[in-house]
């Protein structure tokens, strides 16, 4: 077997049984690995309408054929289950070098079924796999868990993926953590792991990933490497990391501020990558095989927020900073490390606290509701006190632990403060005046709830040459991209981008090294890497088709769970057309529905957003038609 390890692990936690089975060609060639493999498995194996925290849910961890090879930035892994927050597809994608270790140990996917009767961890030492007692790890932070496992297993090169106290306490804002700080699993993957009494997966792998045509693969690697190094965008990104977005978003008036009431935060200059570099950054950190190495180690040497950690991203900074009205970067770094240790998602957690602050400012919450915490905009200490309260479900933290949608049901009149799609908090960008309407559509139709990484039209991807081909002319494409306020063509743009992300997430290549907008890798470059690595001949078009198949399977999963057109929508606040000094913002619901119609039509879905029989057959999914009726 080339590229793929060719094997998956099925771990039956209730029975304490572990089964190894080959990864079939059907899965390899039609779903690649990672996200696609997990999504298809979820559709195939999960019974509809189960409780996400019951033993019936299944939790999957998967990597792709390029992980553990020299393919640049092939470092990601995907964790998938039915989401606690959306009750639809839930997954998350993380970095570090855990994925490579899992491949070297010989596995493409690990599936966890049932629930262990006591806390356990899975220890994978190449082909020896066992469930071990985790009583001594239960209650520990993610960092303590890493240190304890290194000591117990006697090898610092063992890679650990684990949950913190938040996951153990079934907090839907909990994620899973690899390499101490590399996280994935929005929508409560940490809580699902906790519900299974599974504390950690520890892996040591000393094997190899076999390469079908080594010389050709090496040429493809060199080509990809040189392309990435030549990109002016990536040269900037290599130094600044995702924090460059603070400056860009401020310029676009898209830095989500005070629960997305505005796209401009007056304290933004204290949060930029320049401010971070000059005061707190220690050095860069690269995920596996990534020449960009955008992440940083940081240290706040002294003061009330003294801390250290890694990977303070834009996605940590804006939710706790601008969104909560905070301009103290050292405090934000403190919160980031605290979230990493407690096992909390900085995105959903920061956004939920921002929601609560909005409620406070509108007088919907008072001190007697909040355990006397004054949730005024900018109250750093209140946020820091709330984080452990959320992770341990104490007092007011217990309400916020459920995420903003559920919390709003307990707070009278708070619906106007909600910023969620399908129950997941809107991430990354403020839907503001310069928001490309394509981005809004992508948030509304993402298969895991509001999400900037599935169809991140403003940020990356766009198979530009392909779009031009399909739409018959460069002008049409230019109009779609350059006229952000026009609804025309946005459905096509979004569908393309979603398919693109579906397949590169399944190859588990990082989203920052793909996309033509910043002259990075395109589907053809990835196809060359994949073909020479695995020996499975694929073109860029084949990969786009696989992406479409994956997206349709995910859609089908959500449809089977009862979702549909009614759920493809945006926070109410977006459907208010306003003129701001920087331009118009929002859009009418009618215009949004037009855009949705165009999107469904291009996708080959009916008016309710259900994939048609013809579309499913065309994608080789004819056998799932019955399940959508």
């Amino acid at each position, binding site marked *: 077997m080339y590229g793929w390890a060719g094997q998956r692990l099925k771990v039956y936690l209730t029975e304490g049984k572990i089964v190894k089975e080959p990864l079939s060609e059907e899965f390899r060639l039609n779903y690649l690995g990672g996200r696609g493999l997990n999504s298809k498995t979820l559709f195939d194996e999960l019974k509809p309408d189960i409780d996400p925290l019951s033993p019936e849910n299944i939790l999957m961890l998967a990597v792709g054929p390029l992980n553990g090879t020299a393919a640049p930035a092939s470092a990601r892994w995907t964790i998938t289950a039915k989401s606690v927050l959306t009750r639809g597809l839930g997954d998350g994608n993380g970095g570090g070098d855990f994925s490579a270790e899992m491949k070297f140990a010989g596995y493409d996917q690990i599936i966890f079924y049932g629930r262990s009767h006591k806390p356990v961890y899975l220890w994978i030492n190449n082909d020896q796999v066992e469930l071990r007692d985790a009583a001594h790890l239960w209650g520990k932070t993610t960092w303590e868990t890493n240190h304890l496992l290194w000591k117990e297993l006697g090898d610092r090169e063992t890679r650990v993926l684990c949950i913190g106290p938040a996951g153990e306490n079934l907090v839907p804002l909990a994620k899973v953590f690899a390499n101490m700080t590399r996280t994935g699993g929005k929508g409560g993957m940490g809580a699902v792991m906790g519900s299974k009494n599974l504390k950690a997966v520890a892996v040591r792998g000393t094997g190899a990933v076999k390469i079908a045509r*080594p010389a050709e693969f090496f040429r493809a*690697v060199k080509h990809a490497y040189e392309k990435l190094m030549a990109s002016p965008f990536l040269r900037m990104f*290599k130094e600044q990391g995702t924090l460059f977005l603070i400056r860009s978003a401020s310029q676009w008036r898209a830095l989500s501020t005070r629960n997305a009431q505005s796209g401009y935060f007056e304290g933004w200059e204290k949060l930029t990558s320049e401010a971070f570099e000059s005061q707190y950054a220690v050095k*860069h*950190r690269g995920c596996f095989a990534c020449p960009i190495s955008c992440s940083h180690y940081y240290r706040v040497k002294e003061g009330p927020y003294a801390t250290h950690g890694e990977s303070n991203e834009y996605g940590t900074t804006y939710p706790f900073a601008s969104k909560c009205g905070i301009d103290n970067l050292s405090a934000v770094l403190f919160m980031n490390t605290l979230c990493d240790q407690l096992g909390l998602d900085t995105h959903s957690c920061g956004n939920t606290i921002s929601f609560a602050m909005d409620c406070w400012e509108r007088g919907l919450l008072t001190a007697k509701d909040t355990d006397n915490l004054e949730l005024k905009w900018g109250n750093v200490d209140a946020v820091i006190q709330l984080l452990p309260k959320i992770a341990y479900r104490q007092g007011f933290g217990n309400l916020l632990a459920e995420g903003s949608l559920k919390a709003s049901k307990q707070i009278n009149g708070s619906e106007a403060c909600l910023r969620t799609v399908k129950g997941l908090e809107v991430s990354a960008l403020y839907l503001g005046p310069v928001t490309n309407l394509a981005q809004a559509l992508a948030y509304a139709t993402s298969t895991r709830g509001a999400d900037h990484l599935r169809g991140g039209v403003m940020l990356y991807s766009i198979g530009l040459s392909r779009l031009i081909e399909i739409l018959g002319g460069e002008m049409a494409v230019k109009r779609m991209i350059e006229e952000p306020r026009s609804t025309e063509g946005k459905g096509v743009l979004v569908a393309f981008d979603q398919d693109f992300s579906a397949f590169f997430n399944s190859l588990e290549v990082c989203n920052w090294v793909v996309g033509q907008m910043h002259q990075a890798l395109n589907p053809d470059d990835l196809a060359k890497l994949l073909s020479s690595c695995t020996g499975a001949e694929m073109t860029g078009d084949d990969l786009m088709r696989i992406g479409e198949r994956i997206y349709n399977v995910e859609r089908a999963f959500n449809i089977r769970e009862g979702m549909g057109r009614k759920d493809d929508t945006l926070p109410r606040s977006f459907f208010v057309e306003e003129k701001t000094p920087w331009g118009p913002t929002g859009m009418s619901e009618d215009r949004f529905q037009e855009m949705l119609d165009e999107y469904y039509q291009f996708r080959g879905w009916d008016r309710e957003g259900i994939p048609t029989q013809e579309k499913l057959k065309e994608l080789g999914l004819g056998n799932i038609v019955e399940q959508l009726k």
Partner: protein
Amino acid sequence: MSNALGRGNIGEAFEVKLIEVRSSNCVGCRLCEMVCSLTREHECSTTKSRIKIFRDEEFGYNLISLCMQCADAYCIESCAYGALNRDSKTGTVLVDDQLCNGCEDCVVACPVGAIALDKEKDIVFKCDLCGGEPECVKVCSREALIIKDTDPASHERKSLIAETSKALSQMEGG
């Protein structure tokens, strides 16, 4: 270059192209390990790589373990079979696959942990600078690996080896 050195150590000063490791620049991406094993073993594996990166997860103090082509090469001295020799032109220490019997004495002798046993072939492997064009250096985007003219017997080179050796033993000790 002065005389042919055979299997012995370097006596007098001369300069050859060697890799300088700068662990403080290393970001721990391990692309060098992948490219090394891919080009030399035609598969991707950290255990088959001639260069090895130890990643510290909490603070990011990464360490690079790579043959320093020491002027006073303990590995050459340790080998009872004459399987390790210095190339007289490049100053590179090479393994003679025919003579190596896999005893691992050199693995123990190496101060920077840069020699490993290939368990399938039962012979050791180490960096040979890819014959002068090391691929790992070409894919190191943070200048943690640099190829430059170096006097292997110089004070700077010897202290780099001593520092690396100390850091590696500290890391292994916990």
